């Protein structure tokens, strides 16, 4: 369920539960249109009311071209590619990004954020490859997030527990 007014692109094709991802599998793309209304909505939902995310006067006064998206919103959208694919928002165990370029959100046009992923590693169950993952089959997805063809995140990767794997304790 989403409220009216929130622009949403079609989700990435959900993975079939029990899917057997292989290294090199491509995921997406997921394109999400972000406008000022979504920044305001995210500010309220997250509690991050830094005015550089909604007030152009403040944004330009600190040297930005215009209002920019919350980095954590961009990270959240990247996470959606993964949770849509695996079909389970609880499946992500590890998720990290580097914020390398601000996402400027002009009014009223907004901006398209494009997200793609690639399965970079598949670890079979039984390997103790880290806290929370011991005995659980996992896959690591490397993410590419761009605006106007330019990367806005670096080192973006998520590790998911694969469907059918035992829950970690």
């Amino acid at each position, binding site marked *: 369920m989403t409220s009216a007014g929130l622009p949403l692109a079609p989700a990435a094709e959900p993975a079939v539960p029990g899917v057997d991802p292989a290294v090199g599998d491509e995921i997406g793309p997921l394109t999400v249109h972000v406008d000022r209304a979504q920044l305001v909505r995210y500010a309220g*939902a997250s509690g991050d009311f830094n005015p550089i995310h909604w007030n152009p006067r403040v944004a330009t006064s600190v040297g930005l071209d215009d209002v920019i998206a919350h980095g954590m*919103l961009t990270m*959240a959208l990247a996470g*959606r590619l993964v949770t849509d694919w695996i079909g389970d928002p609880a499946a992500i165990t590890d998720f990290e990004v580097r914020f390398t370029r601000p996402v400027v959100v002009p009014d009223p046009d907004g901006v398209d954020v494009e997200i793609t992923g690639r399965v970079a590693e598949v670890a079979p169950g039984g390997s103790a490859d880290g806290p929370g993952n011991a005995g659980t089959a996992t896959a690591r997805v490397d993410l590419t997030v761009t605006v106007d063809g330019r990367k806005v995140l670096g080192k973006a990767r998520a590790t998911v527990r694969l469907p059918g794997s035992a*829950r970690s304790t």
Partner: protein
Amino acid sequence: MMDSSFVGRSFPPAEPYMVGVEKVREFADAIGERSPLCHDRTAARAAGHPDLVAPPTFAMAVVARAQEAVLFDPRLGLDFSRVVHGDQAFTHHRPICAGDELTAVVHIDAIREMAGNDIITLRTELTAHDDVPVCTAVSTLVSRGAA
């Protein structure tokens, strides 16, 4: 310059963060997450969760509140107006669910200077009311030099 003697310190938790059903739905809506596990309590319970599942980056809403008390401490000497978020990493030991009462302890893991910028690494450990580890969040914040 930040006071590097803060490295290794941890900050005791304030009031626990109470994860609410409507907050999870609101956050999911704000990022366009439409999974039934984030919206439909019956579906979440049927999937084995105690209540709605929060999207993975929801943890930051909890973490940010705890970090603020540390970052605004004048003794640290951080110029918050110049701070940008450099890196963020989460390790989820289990999903955050509605009904969780989360306690956050913030640790200052590193303070360093690079190319005229102050860089601080904060690690926030979220635990549930039964002391079970829920999430480890590592944030690297960059305070841009005035030069």
